């Protein structure tokens, strides 16, 4: 949409005006032709010149109309002007007395009307033409040269005045047009700004819609991925449960028979095993147990994953747990030159935890300590720190590089830490310990330096309901 220029706008207004004007003139023309025809028939002598003049005027009007239809405004105005002037000129040239008296006074009207349609310069050009016609046209007839000369001069004066008036009015018209145009343009700018804002808004709207669609798509994908992960987790849990079952059945025979042979000779009519057999059978028995522990660990982790691990938080007595763990540790040490030390408070505080799981975690720490300590000692310290009980298992093993202090608590990462150390297991024990401690609202971490041994710490919440529960049993009973 282009903003119209000042000229276009004025021309539009004038075109409308001329469109009315030529039609009115044409109708007037036809009416006059009829009138002249009636007058002529009454007087019984035809004045042909009137018909010719009115016909010229009519043709001028029709040409004007045609030009207007094809948007040739200037040509249309000039057709209209020339039609009028020619008609007047023809009437004057005939020298008829009525024409000589009336026609000169028609010219000022024509000039005024045309002056409103043309520019000031063109108006004065038309005025010049009119002056020429008024002065020259009557000289073609004998009567015209002498009669009504003052009439014509007066009409000439009037024509000039009307030309000036028209120019004045046109100027006014231009001013009004300019003002209207200015307002129009201002209005247009506002509207355009509005349009622009609306367009931007629409664009923004489309963009945000696209974004929201994209978001929805991403959400859907996320949901699908989540469901897939959930399903995978479920299948993994089911698979592990089945695997555990399938592995336990052959282990039942491996562990069961090696144990009966090693421990219960009465079941074989007291026939003694040859020492070499007994020696090797021990390996079968120990390996079977190791395998069983591994299966139990994997099963535990899958239970934690599935949120199915049973943890019963209840006040537990530490004495039997520590006794059991220490006796297991003593069994694990065997003939190695490793001593077990304890530094325990009297009385031992009671903790709020799951007894089996606490035993499992402590056994794991001792089993690791025994595994990695070739000689020296393993010391258990128990202290109450505010509302928590802290267990510390300190060994004199090779120690752990600080960069691995977190990694060792991640699943299957032990191998990464200790490389191909034959003592490393599957690396599940500490991962499980951390999970169990989290479930029991406790904590596990390590302090260690390479070459200076390691200390694993555990925190468990103290049981506040029975503060003196353990006071009855002396800790001396624990000395092994």
């Amino acid at each position, binding site marked *: 949409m282009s903003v119209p220029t000042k000229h276009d706008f004025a021309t539009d207004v004038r075109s409308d005006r001329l469109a009315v004007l030529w039609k009115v003139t044409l109708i007037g023309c036809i009416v006059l032709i009829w009138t002249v025809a009636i007058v002529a028939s009454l007087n019984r002598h035809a004045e042909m010149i009137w018909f010719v003049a009115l016909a010229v005027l009519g043709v001028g009007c029709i040409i004007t109309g045609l030009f207007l239809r094809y948007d040739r405004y200037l040509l249309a105005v000039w057709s209209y002007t020339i039609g009028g002037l020619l008609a007047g000129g023809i009437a004057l040239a005939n020298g008829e007395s009525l024409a000589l008296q009336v026609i000169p006074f028609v010219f000022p009207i024509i000039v005024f009307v045309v002056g409103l349609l043309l520019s000031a310069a063109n108006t004065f050009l038309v005025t010049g033409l009119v002056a020429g016609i008024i002065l020259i046209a009557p000289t073609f007839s004998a009567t015209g040269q002498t009669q009504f000369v003052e009439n014509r001069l007066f009409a000439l004066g009037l024509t000039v005045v009307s030309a000036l008036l028209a120019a004045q009015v046109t100027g006014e018209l231009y001013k009004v047009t300019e003002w209207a145009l200015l307002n129009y343009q201002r209005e247009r700018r506002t509207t355009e700004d509005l349009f622009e804002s609306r367009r931007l808004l629409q664009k923004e709207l489309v963009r945000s819609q696209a974004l929201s669609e994209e978001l929805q798509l991403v959400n859907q994908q996320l949901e699908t991925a989540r469901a897939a992960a959930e399903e995978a987790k479920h299948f993994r849990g089911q698979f592990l449960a089945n695997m555990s079952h399938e592995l336990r059945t052959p282990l*039942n025979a491996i562990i069961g028979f090696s144990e009966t042979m090693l421990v219960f000779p009465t*079941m074989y009519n007291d026939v003694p095993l040859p020492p070499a057999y007994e020696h090797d059978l021990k390996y079968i028995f120990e390996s079977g147990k190791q395998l069983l522990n591994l299966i139990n660990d994997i099963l535990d982790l899958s239970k934690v994953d599935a949120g199915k691990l*049973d943890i019963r938080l209840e006040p537990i007595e530490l004495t039997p747990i520590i006794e059991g763990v220490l006796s297991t540790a003593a069994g694990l040490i065997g003939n190695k030159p490793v001593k077990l030390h304890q530094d325990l408070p009297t009385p031992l505080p009671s903790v709020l935890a799951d007894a089996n799981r606490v035993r499992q975690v402590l056994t794991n720490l001792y089993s690791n300590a025994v595994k990695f300590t070739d000689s020296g000692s393993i010391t258990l310290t128990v202290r109450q720190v505010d509302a928590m009980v802290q267990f510390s298992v300190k060994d004199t093993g090779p120690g752990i590089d600080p960069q691995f202090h977190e990694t060792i608590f991640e699943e299957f990462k032990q191998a990464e830490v200790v490389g191909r150390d034959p003592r490393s297991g599957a690396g599940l024990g500490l991962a499980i310990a951390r999970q169990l401690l989290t479930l029991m609202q406790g904590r596990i971490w390590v302090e260690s330096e390479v070459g200076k041994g390691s200390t694993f710490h555990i925190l468990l919440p103290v049981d506040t309901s029975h503060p003196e529960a353990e006071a009855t049993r002396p800790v001396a009973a624990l000395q092994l």
Partner: protein
Amino acid sequence: MRIVYVEDNEINLSLIQRIACAGRHLVIHYTDGQSALDNCANDQADLILVDVQLQGKLDGLELTRHLRAAGQQTPIIALTAYAMTGDRDRCLEAGCNDYISKPLPVPQVVRLFEHYASLTAK
């Protein structure tokens, strides 16, 4: 002591037989739940051991329910290779007196037999 053992795995059976022979207990064996249900009333068992995962229509727990419904008073011990949460409760709920998970801890089974044998002796 007469022990009825319902188990479809020969190796497991043979392990229990090996443990039982130390205490000179007699093991009467069934490989499926239905035959155990049909016959064990005549066995005059002092202890019944059932494997939970039995092939056929009756698994160990179903068998226990049927035995209890039929008025069987003999102690029943469930043996299972499943070690999942809730297994123990399910066994006790079905009417078992105890539950042992496989692989069987031999010393514990020996003690268990001694315990029930002493009850029978009285």
